[in-house]
């Protein structure tokens, strides 16, 4: 028989056989299996190693609370470390490998740590590895790092994709067990929009794992019937394989749908997972309960698991870890497991019940008032040692032990907004507190209602109350009262595991207390209790109980750590969704982009824009060749540059000029129609925010430009000024950045070129259309366009705007018509060179810390009017005589490099921060000057022109003698732009 521990019945599909491998061995399983259930059916209990001591481990649970059975699932770039075998859905060809072991799972060299455990107690590392100091990084830490960690990443890019999605509903029901199904039926039958999400691939929750009837049929059958009905209701959305990971503000829930994790590879075009943002008016948590273990010596061997999990494997998956099983319990739940297993033909070696009044059974021996005090078995369980009520001890051979310390309501999501659960004495468990996330209510076992009938009824009632509708009829089901007597750990145990993955034992908790780490937060942090991949779902409570006992307090007095999202760990890729690679941010293309591509342009990212950086010609080997050529050609004749990316904001209204007067530190009220003015905008703190131009197209109509980088922030600022500061001004704002393709046409032949495209009725002569003129014109036989005579390059220059869809054709036309002038397109590099040559400030100078005064525009700040930033711009720190001023800088030796980011020191003076004189903001090679030039902020720079200084850049290993100069390297009188 290929699956020796496969039982009869269960919810697996025996008609199909799936082949899979674990640790290199090939096994068979069935649809409906998890990796863990299939391995157990194949008599494999050893599935992993613990974090610190490398103890052999098998599954503790049958669900997402699993701490032990974690594996590396899949291979190659799809390898997923730390995957819980208990939730991994089996598919044909599944490959899994054990992790955190070497050379093999069965023979793990690092298991030596277990022998040394007495030295490796909680927090031991804080007390040693300190001498000599340099050895930490070199010796101790590398060893620790290598030993630590669990699974391994593939180190390859994740080949799968992830979607994000957004859903809205009246009611989100988290958990599709008895309570959740009834809640969804209640809401769905009333026509209310409801989402039912469950992390499992089959709805039903515990109903799938129990042998009890609901509405006169098997619980699993009732669940299937309910799901079938829900599927017909139009307002219901069923979301299996969907984990609600977090309850965030205002009813927003995160949910992860595993679309393709049960397949070898996602289907074409389909994501692996979807991260849903669910906007829920109301939310009903029906997340059930999680069984808690009992701590005893060596309680972590493969084969020792939660009694309820044992039952789940037998009833749902028709699998058992062994043919001879014992149960250790402090409540009736253990007996239920024993009865179910017995019914499946499993030999029950013993039920060891801590209660003296435990119920009897005809089918197996019950040891009343007894305890399991130790276990044996190297790689899996062979026997347990039992101490009877009378104190006698003996061994009971068994291949598996089911442990039940009772159940804890699964309150995880109730804590996500920092609500704290409260202690319920009757259940000896934490139940949801009062400060739940707004809109959330809790039903079923998650609320501490443990009977099946109670869960069904509370689910129906919960939905009914949340939505103000009538509850659906509840089917008959078991309604026996459930009580829990606490029993946390066996007296005198020491190496008894609480947090199995992180190897935190009872002894560690005691030591932590002894050393003064007495709050639950300190306990957690000092021992790492509850910080493993299972986040302590099965272990936290045991630690608290022991802490309480040592401190002589009750558990609620000790308090509890709170759960934080996500409910179960989520692939980082899922949070990123499609926003990765080239799609990380949207890409903005200029109107001439396709044309520039044809020209072989090299592009550069400028914010989200892609701009042509330069246009290499055949034979040009270095970018500088291309850029120098573009600069020279432009200055010699004419060049064209796409400057569409500058922000353009349409400002209209009777008060448009008054508005701009508030916005810019310089005056705009008197700007004539048909004229453009440079404007400097300050933040209210008096620092330069942005600069640009405002063109007055009509008395009540301006077009304002912003820098590319600041377009969004400036628009937002303008709306703030408009709506919040001057709400009664008649002014309207619209961003038109992308509506117009805008090209700078610069160079001595700019006018001649433009005259060939601008329709003849528009006079472009210097007299009719002088420097800083603007106007609405037509081009190429009647296309509406705008023309601004402004110059960033210092040459005779215009900016021509046409509707964006014609931008491509306009650029091609300018190139065609410009051929006779040897027109060149130029990119952002040449643009940068020419503006540095002219001493125009750009992003490197407008860096958010500089003032108008520092930029050499102190006199622009109007003293005659109020504008944003003027008052605070007068503070002493912004007006120091010896403050920074923008100047030009050039190397004494023209062959020397200078670099932006270099700092300036007095020639012959000390070189250190205390003697820093300023820094270079921008630098470029100027073909005109025949050397590199730069712009710099220098203390009292305007008074130091001609002074020789030393530029130092230790981080690029550069020291250069330089001279301060006027920032206007080219045509300082500005004759060219006025020509």
């Amino acid at each position: 028989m290929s699956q020796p521990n496969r039982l009869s019945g269960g919810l697996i599909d025996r008609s199909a056989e799936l082949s899979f491998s674990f640790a290199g061995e090939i096994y068979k399983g069935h649809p409906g299996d998890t990796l863990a259930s299939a391995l157990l059916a194949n008599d494999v209990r050893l599935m992993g190693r613990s974090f610190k001591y490398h103890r052999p481990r098998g599954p503790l649970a049958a669900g997402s609370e699993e701490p032990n059975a974690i594996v590396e699932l899949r291979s190659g770039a799809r390898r997923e470390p730390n995957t819980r075998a208990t939730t991994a859905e089996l598919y044909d060809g599944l490959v899994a490998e054990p992790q955190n072991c070497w050379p093999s799972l069965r023979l793990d060299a690092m298991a030596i740590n277990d022998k040394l455990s007495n030295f490796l107690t909680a927090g031991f590392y804080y007390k040693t590895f300190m001498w000599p100091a340099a050895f930490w990084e070199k010796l101790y830490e590398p060893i620790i790092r290598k030993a630590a960690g669990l699974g391994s990443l593939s180190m390859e890019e994740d080949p799968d994709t992830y979607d994000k999605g957004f859903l809205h509903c009246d009611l989100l029901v988290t958990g599709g067990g008895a309570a959740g199904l009834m809640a969804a039926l209640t809401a769905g039958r009333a026509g209310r929009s409801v989402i039912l999400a469950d992390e499992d691939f089959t709805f039903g929750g515990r109903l799938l794992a129990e042998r009890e009837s609901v509405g006169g049929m098997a619980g699993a059958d009732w669940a299937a019937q309910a799901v079938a009905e829900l599927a017909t209701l139009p307002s219901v959305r069923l979301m299996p394989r969907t984990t609600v990971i977090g309850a965030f503000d205002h009813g927003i829930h995160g949910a992860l749908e595993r679309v393709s994790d049960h397949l070898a590879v996602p289907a074409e075009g389909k994501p692996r997972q979807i991260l849903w943002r669910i906007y829920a008016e109301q939310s009903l948590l029906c997340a059930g309960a999680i069984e808690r273990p009992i701590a005893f010596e060596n309680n972590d061997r493969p084969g020792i698991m939660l009694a309820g999990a044992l039952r789940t494997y037998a009833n749902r998956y028709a699998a058992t870890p062994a043919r001879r099983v014992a149960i250790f319990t402090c409540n009736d739940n253990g007996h239920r497991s024993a009865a179910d297993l017995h019914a499946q033909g499993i030999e029950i070696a013993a039920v060891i019940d801590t209660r003296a009044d435990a119920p009897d059974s005809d089918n197996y021996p019950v040891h009343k008032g007894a305890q399991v005090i130790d276990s044996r078995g190297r790689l899996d369980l062979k026997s347990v040692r039992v101490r009877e009520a009378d104190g006698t001890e003996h061994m009971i051979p068994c291949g598996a032990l089911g442990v039940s310390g009772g159940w804890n309501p699964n309150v995880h999501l109730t804590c996500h907004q920092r609500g704290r659960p409260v202690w319920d004495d009757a259940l000896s468990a934490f139940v949801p507190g009062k400060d739940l996330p707004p809109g959330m209510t809790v039903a079923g076992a998650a609320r501490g209602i443990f009977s099946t009938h109670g869960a069904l009824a509370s689910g129906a009632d919960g939905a009914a109350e949340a939505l103000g509708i009538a509850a659906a009829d509840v089917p008959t089901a078991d309604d026996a009262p459930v009580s829990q007597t606490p029993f946390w750990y066996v007296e005198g145990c020491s190496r008894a595991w609480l947090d199995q993955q992180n190897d935190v034992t009872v002894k560690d908790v005691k030591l932590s207390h002894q050393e003064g780490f007495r709050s639950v937060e300190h306990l957690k942090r000092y021992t790492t209790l509850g910080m493993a991949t299972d986040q302590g779902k099965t272990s936290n409570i045991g630690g608290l109980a022991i802490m309480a006992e040592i401190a002589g307090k009750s558990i609620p007095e000790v308090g509890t750590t709170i759960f934080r999202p996500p409910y179960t760990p989520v692939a980082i890729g899922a949070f990123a969704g499609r926003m990765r690679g080239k799609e990380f941010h949207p890409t903005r293309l200029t109107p001439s982009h396709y044309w520039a591509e044809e020209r072989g342009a090299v592009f550069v990212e400028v914010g989200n824009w892609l701009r042509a950086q330069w246009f290499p010609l055949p034979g040009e080997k270095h970018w500088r060749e291309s850029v120098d050529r573009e600069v020279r050609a432009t200055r010699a004749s004419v060049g064209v540059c796409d400057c569409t990316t500058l922000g353009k904001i349409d400002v209209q209204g009777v008060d448009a000029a008054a508005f701009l007067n508030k916005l810019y530190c310089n005056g705009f009220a008197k700007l004539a129609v048909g004229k453009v003015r440079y404007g400097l905008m300050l933040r209210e703190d008096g620092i330069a925010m942005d600069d640009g131009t405002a063109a007055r197209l009509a008395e009540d109509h301006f077009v304002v430009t912003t820098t590319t980088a600041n377009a969004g922030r400036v628009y937002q600022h303008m709306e703030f000024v408009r709506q919040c500061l001057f709400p009664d001004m008649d002014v309207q704002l619209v961003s038109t950045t992308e509506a117009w393709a805008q090209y700078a046409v610069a160079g001595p032949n700019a006018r001649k070129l433009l005259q060939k495209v601008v329709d003849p009725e528009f006079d472009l002569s210097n007299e009719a259309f002088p420097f800083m003129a603007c106007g609405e014109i037509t081009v190429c036989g009647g296309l509406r366009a705008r023309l601004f005579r402004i110059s960033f390059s210092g040459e005779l220059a215009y900016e021509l705007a046409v509707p964006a869809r014609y931008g491509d054709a306009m650029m091609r036309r300018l190139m065609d018509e410009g051929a006779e002038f040897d027109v060149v397109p130029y990119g952002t590099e040449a643009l940068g060179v020419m503006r540095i040559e002219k001493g125009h400030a750009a992003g490197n100078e407008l860096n958010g810390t500089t003032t108008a005064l520092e930029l050499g525009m102190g006199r622009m700040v109007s003293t005659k009017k109020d504008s944003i930033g003027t008052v605070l711009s007068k503070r002493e720190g912004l007006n120091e005589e010896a403050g920074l001023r923008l100047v030009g800088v050039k190397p004494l030796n023209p062959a020397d490099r200078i670099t932006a980011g270099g700092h300036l020191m007095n020639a012959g003076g000390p070189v250190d921060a205390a003697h820093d004189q300023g820094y270079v903001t921008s630098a470029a090679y100027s073909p005109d000057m025949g050397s590199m030039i730069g712009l710099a902020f220098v203390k009292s720079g305007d008074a130091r022109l001609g002074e020789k200084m030393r530029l130092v850049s230790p981080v690029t290993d550069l020291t250069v003698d330089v001279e301060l100069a006027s920032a206007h390297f080219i045509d300082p009188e500005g004759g060219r732009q006025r020509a």
Partner: protein
Amino acid sequence: MHSLTPITALGGAQPRIDTIAEMTLTENPGLALASIAARRGHEEACKDHLRALIGDVPGPGRSQLHDPEAAFWTGPDNWMAGAPFDTHEDLAAQLKARFGETASITEQTDAWVCFDLRGDGIEAVMERLCAIDIRTMVTGDAQRTVIHHLGFFVLRRDPADWLRILGPRASAGSLHHAIVTAMKAVA
């Protein structure tokens, strides 16, 4: 008539059409757009002009579907007007003439790329793209929201399996990629 040949926002001579399963995404360059912003003190007069033009004044989240001109609400006292490009390339000028001093009119035609998304499954597509509750939007609803950091308008047209999406023109390629990817994911 001028001599410049337009290209579409996606850079083609012809509009792009993508058909995936039962859904079709069509780039639509045939729309002229202009924003209308009422001037202070002229709000009612502005609305009167708008009503005269398209029959009603759409309120927040709504559009007035009308031929040849139509409009949707974009903000307090702000609307976006649309009309066929072939007949209304000068829409802004036409509106300026009509609205006079009651409104600020700004040409918006080429600020936007327009996509028409039609067919079975378009709600599922939108659910993968944006937070808007697309299933409760009815014909005539017009909302602005965000797809992958891109602000855009979505209008529910008539019939209801037709959505019109207006996104920033320079990002047409990114928006198109996002929509087509979502179409494939839900197909």
